[in-house]
């Protein structure tokens, strides 16, 4: 899967994008976020409070309960502030 980070999530994680294998036992956006948080360092900081994060799967806004699979593009970012 491909995981993308934007805005301060990108800054805290220290990268904008990474390819990874679907981690064992991860079936939802929330589980993926927990997995990333457990990596520590900048990830722990970026994923400290899920309430401050939004997610997209394959470029559609989704809730954290949405399933994820091996070929998905998953993105994490703060609430949007365009316009």
């Amino acid at each position, binding site marked *: 899967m491909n995981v*993308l980070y*934007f*805005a*301060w999530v*990108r800054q805290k994680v220290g990268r904008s994008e990474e390819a990874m294998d679907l981690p064992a036992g991860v079936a939802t956006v929330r589980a993926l976020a927990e997995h990333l948080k457990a990596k520590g360092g900048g990830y722990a900081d970026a994923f400290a409070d899920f309430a401050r994060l939004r997610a*997209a799967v394959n*470029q*559609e*806004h989704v809730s954290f309960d949405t399933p994820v699979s091996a070929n998905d593009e998953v*993105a994490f*970012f*703060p*609430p*949007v*502030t*365009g*316009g």
Partner: protein
Amino acid sequence: MSAVIHVRVQPEPFDVNDELEALAGDGVGAVATFTGYVRGDGGLTAMTLEHYPGMTEREIAHCAEDASARWPLTGVTVIHRVGRLKTGDPIVLVATASAHRAAAFEACEFLMDYLKTRAPFWKQEERGEGKAWVEARASDDAAAERWRPK
């Protein structure tokens, strides 16, 4: 009748007159436009807009399709800039064309409200040496919410 939809995300400025000319045509009686600018309040000097290439264009196109399903529009143009912009620079243009003004006005406002809550853009503001990400505002969510069917 289906609206001709133009969506662009670009660092370059846009020319409002060129965009309005492109929306004109037979059956168009009204074009409403909204232009948003970088507001220089609280010592703000510049901002940088980040987006999600691909998703951003798709989300804006979804918003435009929703608008053209709700109002009898002949055309919709949305241009949103990205990259570093200074105080007074235009950021966003929304233009809606229709036979009559009510549809054009309402659809233009709907599009801005939806864009602000759905299109993946993030603003980082510069004040002096400091940089800070803009926090999403509840008032923007409320503005988008009022368009939901009751």
